[in-house]
């Protein structure tokens, strides 16, 4: 049976699509976003990290392996008794990453299995994958959570290590194919939140009928600790979190789009 590399399965995730959801995180990503808040998701192989647990003031060193090869059955076993909750909440399963399309056959099998059980599926993608992979999963995907980060390709490449033409083309293709899409924009101070970039994102969203909703995801500090544990340098160490007034300003820029806009997920 097809095996895939999973780095986490989290239940009661409430910001990754409608209802109460379980999110399956697949490991491996083609991008290297400087602000990435899941750095443990980037490499396509298991990694060992150290953490310390405290008990009565004493510290215990524990090692944790991030990433486990699992079969479709094993993943589904962890999902299936949540079905009553998915049903009740009109929720479902979200496949996230990393980039789930880095493991296309595994993802496809998982999506098919969910469809067999009438479970709503969402795929959280950076868009950087071959168009035919999108075509293959489309019949089994109820919703795409699609990241739009930076519209200028060279700047995109500078901050994420990849150009964005493929990403933008895939988004138009999903529109033509009649997919249902929710766009997510990471707001990173000084990187993605300048007016020019945000207006360019807005234009794309406006011209794309498949996009049903826009989520603005402001940068937060949660990732710092993770970088430390993974022994990775964190380039955005000194970045300040957003003030509410600034977020309101940004939200206002998008307010004339005819769709729900949310900030902070």
């Amino acid at each position, binding site marked *: 049976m097809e095996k895939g590399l999973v780095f986490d399965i989290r239940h*009661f995730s409430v910001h990754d699509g409608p209802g*109460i959801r379980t999110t399956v995180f697949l490991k491996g990503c083609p991008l290297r976003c400087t602000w990435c808040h899941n750095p443990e998701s980037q490499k396509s192989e298991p990694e060992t990290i150290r953490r310390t*647990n405290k008990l009565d003031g004493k510290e215990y060193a524990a090692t944790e392996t991030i990433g486990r090869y699992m079969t479709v059955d094993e993943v589904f076993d962890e999902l299936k008794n949540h079905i009553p909750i998915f049903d009740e909440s009109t929720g479902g399963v979200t496949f996230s990453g990393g980039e789930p399309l880095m493991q296309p056959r595994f993802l496809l099998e998982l999506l098919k299995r969910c469809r067999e059980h009438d479970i709503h599926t969402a795929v959280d993608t950076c868009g950087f994958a071959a168009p035919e992979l999108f075509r293959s999963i489309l019949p089994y995907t109820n919703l795409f959570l699609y990241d739009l980060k930076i519209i200028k390709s060279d700047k995109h490449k500078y901050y994420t290590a990849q150009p964005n033409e493929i990403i933008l083309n895939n988004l138009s293709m999903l529109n033509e194919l009649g997919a249902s899409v929710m766009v997510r924009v990471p707001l990173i101070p000084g990187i993605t939140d300048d007016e020019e970039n945000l207006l360019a994102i807005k234009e794309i969203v406006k011209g794309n009928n498949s996009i049903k909703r826009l989520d603005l995801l402001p940068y937060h500090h949660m990732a710092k600790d993770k970088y430390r544990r993974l022994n990775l340098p964190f380039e955005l160490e000194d970045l300040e979190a957003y003030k509410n007034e600034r977020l309101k300003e940004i939200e206002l820029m998008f307010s004339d789009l005819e769709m729900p806009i949310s900030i902070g997920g």
Partner: protein
Amino acid sequence: MMTDRIRQLRRESLRAINTLSAERALLVTEFYKANEDKGLPIPIMRAKAFEHIMLNKKLCINPGELIVGERGPAPKAAPTYPEVCLHTLDDLEIIHSRPKVSFKVDEETRKVYRDIIIPYWKGKTIREKIFSLLSDEWHEAYSAGVFTEFQEQRAPGHTVAGKKIFQKGMLDLIADIDASLERLRTTKDENIKAKMDELEAMRIVANAIIGYANRYADALNELAQKEEDEVRRNELLEMSSICRRVPAHAPQTFHEVLQHYWFIHVGVVTELNPWDSFNPGRLDQHLYPFYQNEIKNGTLTKDGAVELLESFWVKFNNHPSPPKMGVTAQESSTYTDFALINLGGVKEDGSDAVNELSYIILDVIEEMRILQPSSMVQISKKNPDRFVKRAVKITKTGFGQPSFFNTDAIVQQLLSQGKALVDARNGGASGCVETGAFGTEAYFLTGYFNLNKVLEITLNNGVDPLTGKEIGIKTGNPEDFKSFDELYDAFERQLNYFIDLKIEGNNIVEKVWATEMPVPFLSLIIDDCIANATDYNAGGARYNTSYIQGVGLGSITDNLTSIRKHVYEDGALTIKDMLFALSSNFEGFDDLRYKLIYETPKWGNNDDYADRHAVRVFNSFYNAVDGRPTYRGGKFRINMLPTTSHVYFGSKIGAMPDGRKAFEPLSEGISPFQGADRKGPTGVILSAAKIDHIKTGGTLLNQKFSPSFFSTEESLDKLVMLIRSYFKLDGHHIQFNVVSASTLRDAQKHPEKYQDLIVRVAGYSDYFNDLSEALQNEIIRRTEHESV
């Protein structure tokens, strides 16, 4: 917006100091001294004592209030019940000076106790009687903390008003008494004398409460004559004429029905000190016809109704639970007296019961933000999401109310216990989470049962390792057990032994209450005591149930899981080594303890490896208790709730295989051990739903959320979905503590800044400052479920 009047009444109630009042004790002593030689039948004696109290206790009319009647002579002056439980002078000092849940006892009160009350009642109380009748084995188990006993210093009670008393006056009940008497005379009943006495007692107390109300009518009238403010004068006159009509006659207006209930409430809690005080139950249902009628006639406005309700709310808050002592104080360490207002649910015909008043009362709950009364919403699949969401929004403000109950599960529970469909639909939950058929059932909680202590005793072959006493049966040396199942069998035998002991004791206790301490006033209220001409305490109600409350399901699950995994499956250590580590309280076994805590599956994570043990223990407990007969002709049942007994029970247990150190609190209700749930709230509800809630009379599940989770409309919707999901899986109850751990830590450091901080403890809310430090720490540790 709260009116000035309510703001003032609320402030006065919050400010009032809890004091102990000797007034009732003096009146009852005076009466018994004067009448003890008259040879009156017990029910008549009790009824006349009640009459004496009601006709002589001090009246209290607080400035500006709209509903009158206090339990003691003033707000938060708590009466005592020396015929049940006599406080010694030492007890009074403890009550006066203990750091938590204290009541000030002045010199005059102590003098009265020393000179009058103690000399008269010493040797005559229910408490002394009960303790003298119970066996040595019972006492040993009780002292060791295997179980508690609810009725050793408080009366059974544990019931809720049904719709009858909202539709009938005392004169109507007297007519019912006459009809019952008539039937008695025409049938041959071997207990005819006792039954006639009981009915006569009911008539005396019905008249006595009318007399009490008339005293208020007179006093209000007198006050009105002296009142210079015309508006207030008219109010006082109106209140006077209300007290003249109710509770003698059936109430006609919104104001009347609240005053009517309140007189009855005061009657029930003055007659004796029943558990859970008393409770109007399905308040939105009972009041709605009065509200609708007056709104239609233009004699009441919505604002007027809110003000009356808020005035009513303050009355509950004025009544702390009567001062508790000893084990009872430890298992129920709170001022709350557990009146739990029910909203929503279904009507008798099974349809959605949510009405306009349900929402208005939720507004009142949010605006009042006071400890008492407690409040809950019943959620049936037929109730609208809007109602659930409105209630979730109130819990967001972080004072732990209202809590959420599954009507459809409650109805199933009551039906499976053999109740009629209509009675089941008229039911709800009271106290913490206890299922009951309101107005028709006497459901006594008899005591908490310490599942983990039974395991500790099993691991020591019948001996309590804390005292070295052999208090259980010999179930074998654990070193000889070849498998986990052998150990479990031993545990089950030990469990059955202690349940037998508890039930044997319960029936002795029930007999004492049934034969020596009738409650004719409460018997008027609960059907079918009048028709059966039998007292509430003696099985007169339509349904009679006695509960044993299992405590520490999360801990016992983790303990058994840990033994299975490390001893019998992984072979990481022998049972002998485990027991040695436990007896050393893990001194020198840090690494083992780390493994037990961090490398062992735990209850609350939807992991069958652990959860199957919960199901197994639950079924053993259920099989040991359910369906066994009680003294008064009812059945024993189980429920799973702790109040604060998980802290007390923890203080009676040494270190355990889940890594818990000696004397620390156990898990509460059916919630995971504090901090053991790491898979989020859906993991918790899926674990919790693995036990069959329909076989219980209530389970308690506590979930702590940080306020940030409630920040958006969307996340509120998702909480509604979480509640609905749990209820679809037959979960009985869930409550939310919404406060950040850092806030609580700060509150511990600076209690003075957080005097208004109310948190959900376990089936009820309490002031954070009034909790013991251990309980405060536990609440801080409970997992905060940050949104993913």
